[in-house]
């Protein structure tokens, strides 16, 4: 009964997600910290779903991290965003998709601000023209990359070689999803499922055979805090908030955490390593930690990609225990090899267990 009620509420927030022809905007954090993820997303769209998506070499940051750290004015961010829209317009696209939750919040905020204050849009158009000679159209559709994976979750499922099932027990894997604050907390009606029951990742878990974990701190921030992480002196804020989530989820025995935002992914992966080094605590019962994947990495696994070609070895928490639970094939010796099989050594061992 409660489940039905919650499903109904989830469905109450429906969002328009364009069907094809996307202009792609990269993420500062995703491309650096998970450098296979964006190419994987583009591959899934082009080669699995046969969609048209344009990766523009002229595109830049949206400045979101700098904006939320207070070092650039809002006019600057709005004008950089306007330049991105101008690039989209020049390339002949109308559907803008960004690969970062912070960016998604920024683009949405800029569009909402202009909607309520049209004089600001006029001002920014003028500033953009003066500084770059560019002009732009407002995107017809603005979405986050995970929205597209969500939209095509059934198509991916139809092609999937694996399911989120524990091969030995036959039971669904227990999965925590973390949405990232700026996906729907700022503008709840812009995210699939809204702020209270966001469904963009939960829908993937449901569709691909896993079981969602509902835990008390499910909607708590990952602890990025922009300047709270970026400055070493403040970093206790970040780890303390992430730890609050781990402490809250651990009794539900997660097999996997999936994230929407690349920043959240980084914190949930790396702070497990730090907590293990500092306090000797791991959040699984075998001392490996809980693997943390992005939605496109998870989609890549469903589709049967080689885990070491989609960057699963550059997480600090080892993914091998997850692969073993799923009965997923991999060659361990291949994990840390280069493109032509060259030996690149291995990362140093940490206090987290690792199959390396």
């Amino acid at each position, binding site marked *: 009964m409660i489940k039905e009620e919650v499903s109904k509420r989830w469905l109450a927030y429906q969002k328009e997600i364009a069907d094809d022809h996307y202009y792609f905007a990269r993420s500062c954090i995703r491309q650096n910290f998970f450098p296979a993820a964006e190419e994987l997303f583009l591959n899934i769209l082009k080669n699995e779903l046969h969609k048209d998506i344009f990766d523009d*070499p002229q595109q830049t940051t949206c400045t979101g991290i700098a904006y939320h750290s207070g070092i650039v004015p809002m006019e600057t961010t709005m004008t950089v965003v306007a330049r991105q829209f101008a690039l989209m317009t020049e390339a002949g696209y109308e559907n803008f998709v960004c690969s970062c939750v912070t960016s998604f919040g920024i683009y949405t905020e800029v569009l909402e601000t202009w909607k309520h204050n049209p004089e600001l849009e006029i001002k920014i158009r003028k500033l953009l023209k003066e500084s770059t000679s560019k002009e732009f159209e407002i995107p017809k559709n603005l979405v986050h990359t995970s929205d597209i994976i969500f939209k095509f979750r059934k198509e991916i499922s139809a092609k999937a070689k694996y399911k989120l099932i524990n091969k030995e027990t036959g039971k669904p894997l227990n999965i925590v999803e973390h949405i990232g604050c700026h996906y729907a907390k700022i503008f709840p009606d812009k995210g699939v499922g809204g702020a209270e029951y966001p469904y963009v990742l939960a829908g993937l878990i449901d569709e691909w055979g896993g079981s969602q974990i509902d835990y008390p701190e499910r909607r708590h*921030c990952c602890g990025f805090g922009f300047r709270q992480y970026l*400055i070493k*002196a403040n970093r206790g804020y970040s780890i303390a*908030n992430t730890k609050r989530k781990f402490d809250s989820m651990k009794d539900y025995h997660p097999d996997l955490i999936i994230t929407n935002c690349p920043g959240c992914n980084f914190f949930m992966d*790396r702070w497990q*390593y730090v907590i293990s080094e500092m306090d000797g605590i791991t959040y699984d019962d075998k001392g490996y930690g809980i693997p943390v994947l992005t939605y496109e990495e998870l989609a890549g696994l469903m589709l049967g990609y080689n885990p070491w070609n989609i960057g699963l070895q550059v997480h600090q928490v080892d993914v091998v225990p997850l692969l073993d639970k799923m009965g997923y094939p991999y060659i361990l010796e291949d994990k840390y090899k280069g493109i032509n099989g060259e030996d690149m050594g291995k990362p140093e061992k940490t206090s987290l267990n690792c199959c390396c």
Partner: protein
Amino acid sequence: MENLYQKLTEDIRFVEGMNACINCGTCTAICPAAQFYDYDPRMVVDTVQHKNDKEIEYLLKSDTIWQCGECLSCKTRCPRNNVPGYIIQALRALSTELGYFAESEKGRQQLALKRTIGEHILKHGYCVYIDEVNTEMYPEQGPVWDWMQKNATPLLKRLGANYKQDGAGTLRNTSKESLDDLQRIFDITGATERFNKIEHYSKLKSEELGITFDEGLNNDYFKSIYNSKSDII
């Protein structure tokens, strides 16, 4: 003294974020910063709504306004449509403009943000760039990061990136044309001016504190603001 409240009302974030606060404390209850610092968004909003410039000046010179994490969880929850996180953005902008940021330990950290994230944008086109991130400044990156950096060329090729190459793709070069666009946008929209103010007031503060100040990251002032803390509860 400038009319500080009046100045705040010129910021669109303040206009959007400040309605009448009923002091219910909902924002504080869900605020991650309040769980970590001696920080209370309700107090910030209430202080500001009293329009008392003396109190606002105190706020602008305090650590308080720098403790918010800009998660904007408060935006979803406030029953009166206030947004403490937006009000904080307006307070931070004003504090920077007036040089008050240099009066607090947390505020002084703005120089480190400008010299990392801020300068990366103009140098690489993105806020973060792999070559600028090392495990001395970011030890939580862990050994896997050291390994990735050491093997960047062959590894990133395997992962499908276009590291340091022209054209499209992950970690490709950002063209001079795009970087020039960003620089001109920064110049015309006030980011360059804000950068210069952060540098200017930081240098003055370093002289007052007698700490060596220089360009880049390898000087005593930068290291002290980046590493030191005294106020965590």
